[in-house]
C-alpha cells in the first residue's frame, strides 16, 4: 500500500472484461436423499469445471453465497484459491456473486473464479417456518400473523400493484403458466413433466391473497455453479463464452413495509446502471431471466427494467408469448416458480440459464435469438 497515487485512465467499466466459460447444475429436486449442502455444491463445481474444459487446479477464486462458507468448501474440494468470499445477499446472492467475481478478476486478484451455491433441506430448515430470532420481524410483524417465508411482504406488494395499476390475478397466472411450459423442456426443473394451465394457477389455493400456491416457489435441494474468467483465457477454451457486458446493483430496504412505495423495486436503478455500462437499451434485449420467488416480484422488476412500461405488466403477459418459443422469452428454464428453489442457488440459476442460452447449450429450449440477455437477481 502507498499513501498517494495517480489514477490513470477514465471511468472504470467492466464491459466485456470477464466471460462465463463453464456451467454446472445438480438437478433441483424436493429432496436429494443422503446428500449435504457442501456435497451438492462440490458436485455442481466439478460439473462446471469439466464443462469449461479446465482442471480444478486452474481455479484461483471461489465465491459462494455464504451459507456454504468458502473455507470449508475449498477444503472439501481440495483447492486453495487466492480469492475467496461469501456473498450474503439473500435472493440476489447469485447475481451479486457473479458481479463480485467479475470485479475480483479485473482487480487483478485472481483470473478464474468458481461461483457456486446450493441447498440441502436436511442441512438448512425451510425459510420462515418457525419463530424468528429477536428482530424487526419478531417484534413488529409476527404478532400480527405472518404467512411463511417472504409470502406476507409479496402479498402486500401484489395487492398494492392491483390497486395502483389494475393488475389482475389472471394476468399474472399467465406468467406462471408460460414458465411451466419452459420447465417441460428442462430435466433439471423440479416440475418437469407436470404441465399446468393458467386456470390451474388461478384455481390453486391461496397462501395469502392474492398469492396462490402456483405463484410461489417451493423450497428444494440442488446446486449450481459457473466458471468465470478473463476474455483472454476464454478465447483459449472450447465453449462459446458468455461475456459480462454490464453489471449494476442497488440495495433497497430489506423489509418490504419499510419501502416508501411498494410497487417500485431497486431494479429501476440496478438495471439502469447495468445497461449504461453495456451500451445497450431495454429494446435491444432479446430474452430475460428474472428473479421470481413470486410472480409479482418478477412482474414488477420487468417493468422497472424498462422492458415493459410501468404498470403494464398485466396487459404485456396477456398479449405476449414469453415461452422459449415466443416473441420475448422470459425465464427460459422455468424460473424458480417451475424449477424449484434450492436456497440461494435458485436465484443464481437465473445467471446460469442466461449463460447457458448465450453459450447455445439450452438444447430443446434454446432460444433462437441468443446474443443479449438481461439477468435480474
Amino acid at each position: 500500500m502507498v499513501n498517494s497515487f495517480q489514477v490513470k485512465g477514465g471511468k472504470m467499466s467492466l464491459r466485456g472484461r470477464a466471460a462465463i466459460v463453464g456451467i454446472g447444475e445438480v438437478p433441483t429436486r424436493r429432496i436429494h436423499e443422503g446428500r449435504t449442502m457442501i456435497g451438492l455444491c462440490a458436485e455442481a463445481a466439478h460439473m462446471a469445471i469439466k464443462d469449461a474444459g479446465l482442471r480444478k487446479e486452474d481455479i484461483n477464486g471461489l465465491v459462494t453465497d455464504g451459507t456454504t462458507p468458502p473455507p470449508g468448501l475449498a477444503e472439501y474440494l481440495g483447492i486453495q484459491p487466492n480469492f475467496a468470499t461469501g456473498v450474503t445477499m439473500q435472493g440476489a446472492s447469485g447475481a451479486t456473486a457473479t458481479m463480485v467475481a467479475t470485479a475480483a478478476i479485473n482487480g487483478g486478484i485472481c483470473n478464474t473464479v468458481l461461483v457456486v451455491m446450493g441447498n440441502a433441506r436436511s442441512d438448512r430448515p425451510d425459510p420462515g417456518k418457525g419463530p424468528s430470532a429477536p428482530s424487526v420481524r419478531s417484534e413488529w410483524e409476527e404478532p400480527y400473523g405472518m404467512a411463511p417465508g417472504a409470502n406476507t411482504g409479496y402479498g402486500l406488494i401484489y395487492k398494492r400493484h392491483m390497486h395502483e395499476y389494475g393488475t389482475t390475478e389472471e394476468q399474472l397466472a399467465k406468467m406462471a403458466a408460460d414458465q411451466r411450459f419452459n420447465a417441460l423442456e428442462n430435466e433439471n426443473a423440479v416440475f418437469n413433466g407436470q404441465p399446468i394451465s393458467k386456470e390451474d394457477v388461478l384455481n390453486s389455493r391461496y397462501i395469502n391473497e392474492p398469492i396462490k400456491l402456483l405463484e410461489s416457489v417451493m423450497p428444494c435441494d440442488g446446486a449450481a455453479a459457473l466458471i468465470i474468467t478473463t476474455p483472454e483465457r476464454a478465447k483459449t477454451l472450447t465453449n462459446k463464452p458468455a461475456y459480462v457486458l454490464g453489471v449494476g446493483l442497488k440495495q433497497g430496504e430489506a423489509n418490504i413495509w419499510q419501502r416508501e412505495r411498494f410497487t417500485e423495486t431497486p431494479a429501476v436503478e440496478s438495471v439502469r446502471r447495468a445497461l449504461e455500462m453495456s451500451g445497450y437499451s431495454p429494446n435491444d434485449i432479446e430474452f430475460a431471466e428474472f428473479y421470481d420467488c413470486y410472480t409479482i416480484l418478477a412482474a414488477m422488476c420487468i417493468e422497472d427494467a424498462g422492458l415493459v412500461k410501468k404498470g403494464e405488466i398485466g396487459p404485456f403477459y396477456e398479449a405476449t408469448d414469453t415461452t422459449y418459443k415466443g416473441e420475448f422469452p422470459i425465464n427460459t428454464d422455468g424460473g424458480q416458480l417451475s424449477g424449484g428453489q434450492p436456497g440461494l442457488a435458485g436465484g443464481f440459476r437465473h445467471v446460469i440459464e442466461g449463460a447457458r442460452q448465450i453459450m447455445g447449450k439450452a438444447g430443446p429450449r434454446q432460444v433462437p435469438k441468443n446474443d443479449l440477455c438481461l439477468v435480474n437477481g
Partner: protein
Amino acid sequence: MTSAYDKPLPIPSNETLTKPFWEATKRKELLIPRCNTCSKLFFYPRELCIKCGSKDLGWQKSSGLGKIYSYTRVRQAVHPSFQSENGHAYTIVQLSEGVKLPANIVGISPDDVKIDMDVIATFEDVTPEVTLVQFKPL
C-alpha cells in the same frame, strides 16, 4: 379474556430501546420515534436516527389516525394460532404522520378490508404485560 392468549407476543431485539413504546401502549398511546436533532419521524425504533444518525432520540405521540396502505389476507399462517378458514388481514397502515407499521384490522370481516380505508389505532390488552396496537375503521 376467557382463555390464555396463544398468539406470538412481540419479542424485542432491544428491550431497552422499545420499552417506552410498549409501556405507552398500555396507556393506550401510540408513540413514534422522533429525532431530537433533525425532527425526523421514523418507524421501527432504531438506536440512531435513520436520517442524520443522531443518538438524541425521543418519542412523539401519534394521532392514531391513518389509512390502510396495503393488506394481504393470510390463509396459511406460520403460527397455528392464526390459522383460520376465513383468514385474517395482515395490514400495513400508514399513519397521518407518514410512517408505516404492521397491524390487524379489528371489528370488521377481512372481506371488508380495503386499501385507502381510514382507520384509527385501538389498543388490545392481550396479556397483563402486553398491549398490542391494532386499527379499526374510523
